[in-house]
């Protein structure tokens, strides 16, 4: 659908937002790229989807998307979860852009809670939906305080918290939204991706943008930028591992969802990244549970 046709069918501007709002978001994105990991405040708008359901990611996507983009939207790694479907439809309707479920075909990927398994390339942009952009929020509730901590790079409170975890549990007890440090300066929330995905952010060739609509913040990690998951020398960062493989495609290197099969608690494990799983099966890979 052409831009004009999209406008005609919805009565709204291309990609919903008016041009003044797009300019405001675009300015924020450039500052976010110039200061990697710093949360740029922006005048987030009320979108036709609820706050907490991806409005930050949607506004970032709406400000950058063009007619020649091919958009992929995932939630929990899957293209067919209801919220991913809803957001993909929103852009198909308001921007008339092509959509895809194939990671390699997408120029723009909006995600909630996962980084795709297939490595991203320099022609791609990953837009994260972020509920709570402030990594220090659970340690200090006040914005005025956390802003000052970032300003002074005063991150002692975070290191104390992680150290207490180790003292109490023998490990850092954070499984998702695991804090990272970007380019040796800002501590940043990677959004609630499992820590399994953190290493994919490090020196990623794709531009990574983060939008928090309700909290009104945009931040970014430029391509090839070091992203270090916080740890200690004697307790290095490590990711989740499974003893199982994907029941459908047999993958042993992907993040697995646990699916409960029946009321006796039998369970199977399948790739969370539905495209990765489908591509592997198309290439002939099979898991033990396939055809069950």
């Amino acid at each position, binding site marked *: 659908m052409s831009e004009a046709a999209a406008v005609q069918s919805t009565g709204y501007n291309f990609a919903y937002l008016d041009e003044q709002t797009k300019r405001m978001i675009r300015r924020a994105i450039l500052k976010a790229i110039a200061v990697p990991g710093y949360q740029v*405040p922006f005048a987030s708008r009320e979108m036709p989807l609820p706050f907490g359901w991806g409005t930050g990611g949607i506004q970032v996507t709406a400000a950058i998307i063009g007619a020649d983009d091919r958009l992929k939207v995932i939630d929990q790694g899957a293209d067919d979860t209801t919220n991913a479907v809803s957001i993909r439809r929103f852009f198909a309707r308001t921007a008339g852009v092509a959509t895809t479920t194939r990671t390699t075909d997408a120029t723009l990927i909006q995600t909630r809670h996962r980084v795709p398994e297939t490595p991203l390339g320099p022609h791609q942009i990953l837009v994260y939906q972020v509920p709570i952009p402030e990594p220090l929020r659970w340690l200090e509730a006040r914005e005025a305080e956390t802003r000052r901590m970032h*300003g002074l790079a005063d991150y002692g409170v975070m290191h104390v918290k992680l150290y207490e975890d180790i003292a109490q549990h023998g490990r850092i007890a954070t499984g998702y939204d695991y804090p990272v440090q970007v380019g040796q300066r800002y501590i940043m929330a990677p959004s609630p991706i499992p820590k399994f995905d953190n290493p994919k952010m490090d020196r990623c060739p794709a531009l990574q943008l983060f939008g928090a609509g309700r909290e009104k913040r945009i931040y970014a990690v430029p391509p090839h930028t070091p992203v270090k998951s916080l740890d200690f020398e004697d307790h290095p960062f490590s990711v989740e591992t499974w003893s199982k493989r994907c029941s459908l495609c047999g993958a042993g290197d992907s993040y697995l969802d646990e699916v409960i099969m029946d009321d006796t608690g039998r369970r199977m494990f399948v790739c969370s990244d539905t495209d990765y799983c489908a591509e592997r099966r198309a290439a002939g890979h099979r898991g033990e549970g396939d055809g069950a």
Partner: protein
Amino acid sequence: MIDKTSRDGLAPGFRSPVPDAQQTFRRLMDAFARPGTIVDLAAELAPPTSLMPAAAAVLLTLADLDTPVWLDPRLGGEAAGYLAFHCGCAFVEPLDQATFGVLVDGTDVRCLDGFAVGDADFPDRSATVVIQVDGLRADGGVRLNGPGIDGQAMLQVDGLDARFWTFQAGNRMLFPLGIDVVFASGRQLAALPRGIAAMAG
């Protein structure tokens, strides 16, 4: 009626404002995300002669009534009238009040010290300055490294005061504060965000 007369002499802005701004932005964003990358303007644009198309496109894409602009007086009234009409932006004289600055050429960059660099709590409240230059090439000049660059990148900027690189060394020391620079040459753009180190090739 008065408006009509003044508009008759005015050069047109983007032909298709929505897609032209989007395309310009995407290329500019690419330039910011990958310093050293030289991007070509996609949109057709014929601004007043003192303004290069690439510089005009940056402002048409980003500036509006919310962003005070500082214009190099040497750009002249026609350029100011063009931007005032198409962006609706207000112009300011004190450098430190400007969100955007435009330098007519790179021969004298001493004014760069006057632009806002943000503060520790809000490093984003800093200026973005467009400097018009004679040419941009990726096969010589200074060696760049920093966020967005895989190892290192080369950038040759023709017609740029050598003092600029001294300025940028100081600008980078301010990180996360500092101004962000965009070089415009004809229909080409390259960006130099504050955190980029530049060393003699």
